């Protein structure tokens, strides 16, 4: 588990992890915090925030030096090993210990345990991806799997655990700036032509902008109107002060949501939406690529309509009358256009209780895991590339003025900006706090429950202190769930990864001041 507190953020996934642990599996947890997940680990590697590449590269170097690489797999299924080996050469255990704060011997133990395990999985979440070098972080982990052959076979693999019930499906459906449904490239004339023929419409053949680039375009005055569906950027964006200013400066803002969110409050038009998971028919796709049906159990309130119905009505206003579109009709159109979904009829989804893509035809059972092609003899498709990646520290550097490293995450009972989870009475709810380790609390002379001011280079918030013995000295934590009372994104930095567009929510430099 690397940069993932699944015990709190993905509790039922963690039930499966626990079953493995009870069956004798070993778990190594790489996390700056001794989280609820880390408490179940055989070994917890309390890494300094944003130094994952140094740790991964050092582990790779250990595996190479110890002769534990899967040479046959590297030879048959990968490219770029020599450049990778050269890139990790400088990452000695001593150097890695200095950068990461993790003892070299522990890094060595992790590396050898991973390389010698018959099967091994690397699971990660936002601790890896909410960084300015998110993509490089992921590549550093992929390198370890390629080095050892722990990919593409049953029981081994690379597992990014998804944080939302359909974030996988959203990408699969083409809610990405450069992809059409089924990951078909919008700049590929053949792929685009197929969609144009089905839709009878010309599609712009140029990739659009991801969320972070859209905010930059708003800053530059190039983007003047925004249609936001089911997102609350006024509270969820890093450097929220800037995000709110830019949203406020738009000529026209439409928000389609279940709630009058902070973003919706500033909108010109609000379209009330039904809750798709219980007030509409459709599908969602889980972290393991499993497409499953959601079904209507409730009538939506008032004038709220399903997202599909709102979009169809808008299209009609724009001169494209699709008539009444059912979720199943939309899905069947997708199956005609996206080969990896072609075999997933509603009848089969019902019968099998969900299917994992790819599923190319109605006799295909779906795939439990990906990349088995790398083990075929000879391997199919292009070889998997090693990526030489280098450690780059967090953008928001620590100094005497901002000496503490603030990181963010989820609590068990809450979710994102709290729009959904704020609605129920949770006995576990602790509200917005700044969590400190006991040593830092003592050094700062603050006690549990005392309100303090947390100051970053971008903003300040006043929140009560909570003591968490799982936090090492110098590391402080805030959840993202309570923006109304603990507006953590006033503090975070908008430095973002150029490849994924993800901002560095996980690494903010702060200081803590006593109030009054």
């Amino acid at each position, binding site marked *: 588990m690397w940069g993932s507190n699944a015990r709190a953020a993905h509790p039922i996934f963690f039930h499966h992890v626990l079953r493995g642990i009870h069956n004798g599996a070993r778990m190594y947890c790489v996390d700056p915090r001794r989280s609820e997940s880390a408490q179940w680990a055989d070994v917890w590697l309390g890494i300094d925030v944003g130094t994952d590449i140094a740790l991964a590269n050092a582990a790779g170097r250990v595996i190479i030096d110890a002769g534990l690489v899967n040479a046959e797999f590297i030879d048959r299924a990968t490219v770029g090993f020599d450049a990778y080996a050269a890139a990790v050469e400088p990452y000695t255990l001593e150097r890695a210990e200095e950068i990461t704060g993790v003892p070299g011997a522990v890094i060595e133990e992790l590396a050898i345990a991973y390389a010698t395990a018959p099967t091994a999985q690397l699971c990660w979440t936002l601790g890896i991806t909410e960084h300015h070098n998110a993509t490089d972080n992921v590549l550093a982990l992929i390198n370890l799997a390629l080095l050892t052959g722990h990919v593409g076979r049953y029981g081994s693999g690379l597992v990014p655990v998804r944080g939302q019930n359909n974030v996988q499906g959203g990408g699969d459906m083409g809610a990405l700036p450069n992809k059409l449904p089924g990951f078909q490239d919008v700049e590929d004339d053949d792929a685009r032509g197929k969609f144009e023929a089905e839709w009878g419409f010309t599609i712009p053949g140029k990739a659009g902008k991801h969320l972070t680039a859209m905010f930059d375009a708003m800053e530059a005055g190039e983007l003047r109107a925004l249609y936001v569906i089911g997102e609350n950027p006024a509270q969820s964006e890093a450097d929220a002060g800037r995000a709110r200013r830019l949203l406020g400066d738009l000529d026209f803002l439409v928000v389609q949501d279940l709630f009058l969110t902070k973003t919706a409050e500033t909108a010109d038009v609000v379209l009330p939406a039904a809750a798709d998971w219980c007030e509409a028919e459709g599908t969602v796709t889980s*972290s393991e690529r499993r497409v499953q049906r959601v079904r209507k159990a409730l009538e939506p309130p008032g004038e709220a309509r399903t997202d599909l119905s709102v979009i169809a009505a808008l299209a009609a206003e724009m001169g494209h009358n699709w008539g009444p579109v059912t979720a199943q009709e939309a899905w069947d159109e997708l199956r005609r256009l996206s080969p990896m979904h072609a075999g997933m009829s509603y009848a089969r989804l019902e019968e099998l209780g969900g299917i994992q893509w790819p599923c190319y035809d109605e006799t295909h059972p779906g795939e439990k895991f990906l990349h088995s092609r790398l083990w075929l003899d000879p391997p199919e498709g292009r070889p998997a590339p090693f990526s030489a990646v280098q450690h780059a520290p967090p953008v928001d550097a620590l100094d005497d003025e901002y000496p503490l490293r603030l990181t963010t995450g989820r609590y068990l009972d809450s979710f994102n900006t709290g729009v959904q989870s704020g609605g129920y009475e949770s006995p576990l709810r602790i509200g917005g706090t700044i969590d400190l380790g006991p040593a830092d609390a003592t050094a700062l002379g603050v006690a549990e429950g005392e309100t303090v001011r947390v100051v970053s280079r971008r903003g300040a918030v006043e929140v009560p202190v909570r003591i968490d013995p799982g936090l090492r000295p110098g590391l402080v934590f805030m959840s993202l769930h309570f923006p109304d009372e603990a507006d953590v994104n006033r503090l975070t930095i908008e430095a973002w990864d150029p490849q994924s567009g993800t901002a560095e929510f996980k690494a903010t430099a702060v200081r803590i001041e006593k109030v009054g």
Partner: protein
Amino acid sequence: MISLTIDGVAVEVAEGASLLDACRAVAREQPTLCHAENLTPANACRVCVVELEGSRALVPACSREAEDGMVVATDSERVRHSRRMVLEFLASSTDLSLAGVDAWLEDYAADPGRYGPPAEASARDGRRPGHHPVPDGMRAETVAQDVKVDNDLYVRDYSRCILCYKCVDACGVDAQNTFAITVAGRGFDATISTEFAVALTASACVYCGNCIGVCPTGALMFRSEHELRAAGLWDEDAQSVTRTVCSYCGVGCNLELHVQENRIVKVTSPMDDDITSGHLCIKGRFGYDYVQELGDLATTPIDEVLAGVRGEGGTAAR
């Protein structure tokens, strides 16, 4: 495959199957309270005992592994006698009105009333063996006690508890691994307890609700269901159950939404969902209020809430 006979009928089952599996394979369903598909058998309730040729004692069908050549009787006089006694002991000492056992009581001619009128309710937490008055034998000893309502999500009515261990196992290694509850005390004083019998809110409980999900007698109940029942508004015949997917993280847990009057009144997960095995977390189990505008059940009177749903005025809009 393993070959055996159940009530004279030959049956083949896979290696590792239980006698209960074998009974089900020949459509001879057995009564059981403590068994669940998603838990390791605790064989605590003893309702499912069967007679195994060559065995001195009756054996619990739920946990006894089927072996080649076994000859099993599920309806012999000895089995019927034992089941009658067990059902009488349980029904005379606990409130089984929500356990769905009425047909069994009748089938086995169980007469819980013959142990005398039930003893009064009493505080039962923290009792020590031998530290309570010796009963006079004229009344049926019971576990009757006050309902525990100490949080917004769960109600614990241990007057209904038969100590079947399901909740303990669901909280433990079989699912949640939180270990907030266990059996405390001995003999008739045994109870399901948090550490030092503290309130749930002071315990290790993380409110996944998986103990409620497996409770066979209604001793553990969602607060919404408890309050609707208390108000006489719980109506299972009027409820629809819809299978969908949880709206929170990306694991894809299947939910069953139990809906009455366009209101979610309970959330469960199907046992056949290989993601959840019937178990959920606090968000999936309880985090649905954002699609209901009916106010907090703890503070809004139930009839006002449901009057709103029925369009009879009140506070609710949907």
